[in-house]
């Protein structure tokens, strides 16, 4: 019983963990792209990478203040959105998908390549850029705290706290935008671009604004990730994360302000729960070690998450917050 409570406490911690924050921010951006505007961005991780490395390189390599690093990360994400959008947003939706997926892969490979070592630290990555960030924490970051049934370091709490403040601010921003006429144009573009053009709206400009804003939000996710983990490493920015963010978004419900946020929390709860649960079952001999051993758990949990998502799409295709009627209309 106490073992179960431990597992539960661990899972509850992951509900609000840095991973949940990271995927929530990626997802809030993706929701703007995909859920509201209908843009297929399959390289969201590239924006997070630029945010994370923007901070890491500025502070660790160039000795700039943290806030300048944040600004550089945002500007880099902004520029990437323009570069990806300019040639593709006039074309059919699939062109953006191809270009973003390629960009995400290319950027990770360039950042980890040997010639990039003087700037990005290549495969070893960068560290030692978080001092200013933790220095401004209003509480002691060197000791540990008990919170929600588990133990947290002060650093963890500060990173996660700032992360959730950002999630809240960006969610409020999206909420306000989506109830405005600006948001109405975006949703209309998702439905039919030509109809929107025929009503005098510059569709291209709106798609670009959506791509830029969603990318900038993801860049903040990357910043929180590198600050929370204390290092910027190219392998944190595998593009598989983009698809995991899509999973979180669809789980929570697309085109709902809280969809990606709650989806990300639940996704990480499920991952942590299956992870710790399977490990306990193996430890207690309930699952024989010939069938499944400790190291396999890390892989099998994603299989379970995949099965869970498939069940969700079959029984509740609109996600947790979605509106079933919209899914039905989608089929038209």
């Amino acid at each position, binding site marked *: 019983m106490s073992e179960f409570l431990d597992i539960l406490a661990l899972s509850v911690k992951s509900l609000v963990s840095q991973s949940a924050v990271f995927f929530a921010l990626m997802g809030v951006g993706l929701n703007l792209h995909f859920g509201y505007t209908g843009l297929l961005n399959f390289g969201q991780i590239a924006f997070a990478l630029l945010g994370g490395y923007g901070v890491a390189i500025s502070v660790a390599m160039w000795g700039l203040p943290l806030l300048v690093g944040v600004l550089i990360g945002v500007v880099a994400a902004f520029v990437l959105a323009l570069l990806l959008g300019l040639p593709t947003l006039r074309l059919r939706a699939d062109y953006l998908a191809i270009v973003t997926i390629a960009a995400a892969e290319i950027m990770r490979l360039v950042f980890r390549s040997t010639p990039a070592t003087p700037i990005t630290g290549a495969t070893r990555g960068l560290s030692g850029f978080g001092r200013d960030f933790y220095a401004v924490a209003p509480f002691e970051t060197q000791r540990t705290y008990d919170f929600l049934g588990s133990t947290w370091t002060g650093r963890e709490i500060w990173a996660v706290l700032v992360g959730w403040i950002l999630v809240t601010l960006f969610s409020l921003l999206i909420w306000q*935008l989506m109830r405005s006429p600006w948001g109405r144009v975006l949703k209309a573009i998702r439905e039919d671009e030509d109809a929107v053009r025929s009503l005098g709206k510059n569709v291209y400009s709106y798609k670009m604004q959506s791509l830029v804003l969603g990318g900038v939000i993801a860049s903040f996710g990357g910043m929180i990730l590198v600050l929370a983990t204390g290092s910027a490493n190219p392998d944190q920015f595998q593009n598989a994360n983009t698809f995991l963010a899509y999973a979180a978004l669809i789980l929570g419900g697309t085109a709902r302000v809280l969809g990606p946020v709650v989806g990300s929390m639940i996704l990480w709860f499920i991952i942590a729960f299956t992870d710790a649960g399977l490990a306990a079952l193996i430890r207690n001999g309930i699952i024989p070690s010939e069938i499944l051993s400790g190291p396999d758990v890390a892989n099998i949990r994603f299989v379970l998450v995949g099965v869970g998502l498939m069940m969700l799409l079959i029984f509740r295709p609109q996600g947790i917050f979605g509106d079933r009627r919209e899914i039905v209309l989608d089929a038209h």
Partner: protein
Amino acid sequence: MPTNSMPTDTASVLRHLPWNIGVRKPDPTIVVDDLVRSFGGLTAVAVEHLEFQRGAITGLIGPNGAGKTTLFNLLTGFDQPNTGQWSFDGRSLGRLKPHQVARLGVVRTFQLTKALSRLTVLENMKLGAQDQKGEKFLAALLPGWRAQEREIEARAMDLLTRFKLDAKAQDFAGTLSGGQRKLLEMARALMCEPKVVMLDEPMAGVNPALTQSLLEHVKNLREEGMTVIFVEHDMDVVRDISDWVVVMAAGRVIAEGPPESISQNKDVVDAYLGAHHDAPLTAEEEELVLAEAEVAIAAEKAEDADLPTETTRGL
């Protein structure tokens, strides 16, 4: 809204024009010159000279594949021609993007309706309003657009009531029937407060009970000073509301004139009966075909009296 010429004037002025292809109109608003659009080897549109009279209802008819929709696409910037010029109130529209054409006041609807399914009917309508403060990113974050939004909503509800869609205002547009979508699309176009409305088969799929009121709406647009260009297959409808009719076949304008001139036109009858695809007809055969067509048209006219909305699709 300034009315440049009274509707009755428009009709009577047009009545005195010769029934020639490319005839100059007294007060043209859209003027097309040497417009050619081909898809591979197929010439979809080849119009030498065509003028649309301001404040009039012009019916654009022709068999399927005649190039009517392509002409609409070209005039509204949705397609680019191989060659040619066209202008609106003396301003060239060549190279303008669709949204720029719409902002000038030339607004079109689509043959295949484009209701925005997962927006409500009311949201569809409000999208049509022009110069919305709240459509700018930064302004959207401040409450400054709310007063304008209330005005827009009132205007939208007004139009929805006129089109008998007010009860559906809060429903998703995707739940509407095909005919209701046509109505919504037309009402949404009117939210733009256009100078020229181009309707591509606005009556297709509309419940006959609604057709009559839709026709009244179209006539009202003329009373309000708008220019209407519409594509329609139903000859009764065309005769009922058009001040002028332009007939296209195989990309070309093959006839234009007041509605009553059209059914007497040999080229038009040929185009509809597909005679131009066959070997040249002998004089007797030709007379036979013409006689048949005239009988058919006369029969329709007889029906007109008591069954005005009965369709004769494809003539």
